[in-house]
């Protein structure tokens, strides 16, 4: 008897499996290998720091995609939760001096609690309203960060002295087999390991019962209730998980940057995350990472190469008609509009099309 083709799905369990065909597994292994080797090949601090920020952004974007892409709740308040995570780390990791796993967990817990407080709003308000309430969250949050001076240091910001240590192992200064690696190399491994872990958790979440429930709520919350999904519970749950992940991203951001100020958690940051999930592809975990690589690296690259881009001001009052900040803002706007109008499924959609083309080759059409 002939063996069925490897692309043929014969059982439900096969459709839901976490790791796809042998080819996909090989690709995944190759990706892990690349991530492990990359910091040894690329030793330049600038490029490593860009990749670290991309990784942190990818973590946050996975969180937002769970909420917006899978559960269909629009949140402009993502920056608020990221800020909360960073300040939590400043206290738990910095002032109390606890090790890495504890301050990450503490940040996640704080994020989950805050998300649980905001979540109930999503029950009463749908779509349009929720976007505006979460917009209010950004402003209320900014007011809090500026005025809770004992926690956040007010306008002047606060330093985050959270050490990335697990027992004797310090990601800030990795020593392996006699080799000493720099702080940037250590953080690269830490951040991307967490990206992999959180992507795995998120993927596992969305392929199982809660994930299907979230998508049912997204498509039509009342119809979902009729077939027995507790829509309210899942909406609040999605908010909690999403903001917990956002807080973890904030914790990493704070501890890597070692200093945070209230100016960072503004509307533009939220919009950047929204641009990422739209460009990457709504409702795909892989897309969030793709989007983070594509959009998250932009601000740093523009900042670095601003003198090479015509018309960009390199300093305040310098030549050129557009500042680096304004250019970033414009690019986010253009990306959001272009992708929504031309490719609503984002980069992940493009990737899927290319993949299907080659899967069915030479009979693709």
């Amino acid at each position, binding site marked *: 008897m002939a063996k069925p083709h490897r692309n043929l799905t014969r059982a439900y369990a096969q459709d839901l499996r976490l790791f796809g065909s042998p080819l996909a597994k090989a690709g995944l292994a190759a990706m892990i290998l690349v991530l492990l080797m990359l910091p040894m090949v690329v030793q330049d601090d600038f490029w490593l720091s860009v990749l670290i920020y991309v990784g942190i952004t990818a973590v946050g974007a996975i969180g937002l995609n769970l909420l*917006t892409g899978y559960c*269909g709740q*629009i949140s402009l308040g993502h920056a608020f939760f990221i800020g909360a995570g960073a300040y939590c780390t400043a206290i738990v990791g910095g002032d109390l001096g606890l090790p890495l796993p504890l301050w990450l967990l503490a940040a996640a817990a704080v994020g989950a609690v805050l998300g649980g407080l905001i979540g109930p*709003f999503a029950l*009463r*308000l749908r*779509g*349009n*309203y929720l*976007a*505006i*309430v979460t*917009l*209010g969250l950004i*402003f*209320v949050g900014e*007011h809090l960060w*500026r*005025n809770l001076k004992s926690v956040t240091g007010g306008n002047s910001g606060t330093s985050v002295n959270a050490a990335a240590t697990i027992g004797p192992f310090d990601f800030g200064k990795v020593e392996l087999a006699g080799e000493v690696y720099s702080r940037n190399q250590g953080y690269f491994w830490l951040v991307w390991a967490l990206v992999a872990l959180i992507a795995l958790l998120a993927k596992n979440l969305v392929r199982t019962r809660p994930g299907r429930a979230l998508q049912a709520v997204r498509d*039509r919350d*009342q*119809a979902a209730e*009729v077939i027995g999904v507790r829509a309210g519970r899942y909406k609040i749950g999605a908010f909690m998980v999403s903001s917990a992940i956002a807080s973890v991203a904030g914790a990493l951001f704070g501890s890597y940057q070692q200093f945070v100020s209230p100016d960072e958690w503004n509307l533009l940051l939220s*919009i950047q995350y*929204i641009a990422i999930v*739209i460009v990457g592809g709504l409702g795909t975990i892989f897309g969030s990472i793709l989007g983070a690589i594509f959009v998250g690296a932009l601000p740093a690259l523009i900042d670095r190469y601003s003198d090479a881009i015509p018309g960009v001001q390199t300093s305040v009052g310098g030549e050129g*008609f*557009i*500042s680096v900040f*304004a*250019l970033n*803002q*414009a690019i*986010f*706007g*253009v*990306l*959001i*509009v272009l992708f*929504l*109008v031309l490719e*609503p499924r984002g980069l992940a959609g493009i990737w899927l099309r290319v993949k299907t083309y080659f899967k069915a080759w030479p009979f693709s059409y």
Partner: protein
Amino acid sequence: MNAFLQNCFAGLALGSTYALVALGFVVIYKSTGVINFAQGGLLALGAYLGYTFSNNLAVAFGVAILLACLTAAVVGAGFERIVLRRMVGQPPFAVIMITIGLLFIIEPIVTAIWGFENLQVTNPWNIRTVELGGLVFGVRDLWTIGITAAVVVAFFLFFRYSGFGLAMRATAFDPEAALAQGISAKKVYAVSWAIAAALAALAGVTLAAGPGGLSPSIGFIALAAFPAMILGGMDSPAGAVLGGVVIGLAEALTRGYQDQLFSWAGDNVSIIVPYLLMIVILLIRPYGLLGTRDVRRI
């Protein structure tokens, strides 16, 4: 007592600006079901256009206001035609995001053309004041309140008595039935965007003529007008005006009594008062003070 009345007057002037912007939100929301986040961008654009007409081209201020409104209206209708029309039938999420994208495109364009400096619009109001019964009224504030009142009246007359106003109400009520009666939905959508943009430009120019002058952050006031719209009810023009005035009064009074009553809440707490009020209202009456409760079907 005088201080209280003075604060109330400041609140009324601020509330008039909110009301103009919120009216623009309501016009677009009612006819197309879209919340237009780009309103702040259109407001800034209108204000800067007003500056160009008034300062660089040296036309009379009244004419400059009209020209700014007209230009903004063309830009607004252009957005609708070029971008938003492609999104008809898409989920609200996508459309909201598009307008946010537009907002983030307009802002840098405005700063690229006019720069970041604080500009002063040549205008006849300036910082002149009128004193009456111990109270000091800013001429600009009086004009803003007057213009808003006039616009609101014109607005209601337009929707109540003109043919096109009726067409717009019909489209808002039931687009398909309106189409079947021979009303062009495309025209209605384009006109609502034009009206909203003109209202935003009007709010922008009157605001820029005030003591604060004109800076790129002027568009932020549109974000604070969201609470005004929500407070009144998203589909109610009367609600938008009411909401604008309430939010304006609340903000001005908080600012006026910051030192006596609200020092515990931190500096500049008045900035977030609109949002806090909105959250409270949404929990009590999610559809706003004058809005209609929405019926959901499966």
